[in-house]
């Protein structure tokens, strides 16, 4: 069956997360360099480099995005979030020159998602960051579309490896459309076993061999 019955909750992309989306939960687990602007009493055990009872003000440590978002306040200074390198000016210039040469999977893999999330934290650079990720998407779009539409037989793994999560999803969507059409064109209209069933069987065999 080509129509998938399991449709996971899609990621929110942009600034809003989808509460139930697995992708967004993993995205919000990405770590950000932070500086604490207040003392966190009795949480010293979270900071491995010291063995004090409290985490003192001014400590620099990495926090998952969800913590940073939860604690961050515009009016009160609780913590300051640093922009990860890929979104800073140096990299923005590289992306601006030719967005296609960059390995967004290695740099991400949630390049667009995390970039959009960074806009939650006040920074004078925010407009530039927003503009940079939009331009990167536009600049890389043609490649993703062309390869996903031509890739029926050719090997695209090298390209796909360098795509960010969002781009991969688009690439797969493009391929699905093309594959469905080409199957139809070749007249493969017969009923087939469910992919899920086939995958389950493969796993069972693999388990038996262990």
């Amino acid at each position: 069956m080509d129509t998938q019955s399991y449709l996971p909750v899609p990621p929110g992309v942009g600034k809003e997360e989808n509460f139930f989306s697995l992708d967004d939960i993993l995205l919000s687990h990405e770590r950000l360099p932070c500086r604490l602007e207040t003392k966190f009493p009795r949480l010293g055990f979270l900071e491995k480099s010291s063995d004090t009872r409290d985490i003192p003000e001014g400590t620099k440590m990495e926090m998952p995005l969800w913590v940073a978002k939860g604690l961050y306040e515009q009016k009160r200074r609780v913590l300051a979030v640093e922009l990860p390198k890929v979104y800073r000016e140096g990299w923005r210039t590289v992306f601006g020159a030719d967005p296609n040469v960059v390995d967004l999977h290695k740099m991400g893999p949630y390049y667009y998602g995390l970039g959009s999330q960074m806009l939650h934290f006040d920074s004078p650079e925010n407009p530039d960051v927003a503009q940079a990720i939009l331009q990167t998407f536009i600049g890389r779009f043609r490649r993703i579309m062309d390869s996903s539409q031509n890739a029926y037989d050719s090997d695209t793994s090298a390209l796909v490896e360098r795509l960010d999560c969002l781009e991969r999803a688009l690439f797969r969507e493009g391929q699905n459309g093309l594959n469905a059409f080409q199957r139809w064109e070749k007249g493969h209209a017969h009923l087939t076993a469910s992919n899920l069933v086939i995958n389950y069987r493969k796993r069972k065999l693999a388990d038996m061999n262990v």
Partner: protein
Amino acid sequence: MDPSEVEFLAEKEMVKIIPNFSLDKVYLIGGDLGPFNPGLPVEVPVWLALNLKQRQKCRIVPPEWMDVEKLEEIREQERKEDTFTPIPSPYYMELTKLLLNHAADNIPKADEIRTLVKDIWDTRIAKLRLSIDSFINQQEAHAKLDNLTLMEINTTRSFLLDSLNCMYKLRTNVQPSTAAEKTMDY
């Protein structure tokens, strides 16, 4: 949509057949069919035409546009113009496949027609991709899809919608709304 569903819709198109049997008018929910008289042309939906053809009950008369000269003209036109030219049938691809696969013996120069239709399809798909790319590049908000057929739109629909959705979200980032209320995600 699955292409087989698009094909299913195409099967409702009417086509002329020359039956070799006789049968009174048949009254169906979808419309009346017949009467059928040997040697007298009659219009029926494609699904019935193919069924009768498979049982050797009729000869199918190909649609007027399914003709080498006419298709060559369309192909030249399609290559010349930047926009999508009007196509003689909204189901040209599906009908070509169905009729050529099941009734090739009733269609003169079937192989040439197959190639021509494929050429036209390829030209149009290349155009479609080009226009999608410039659409994204120039961050347009709306596009005219005049003269595109269902099958053509269908090959790229979900890809295009997802891409536009991404672009919309990333654009919203650039123009933060003044009333940006803060929602909490943990």
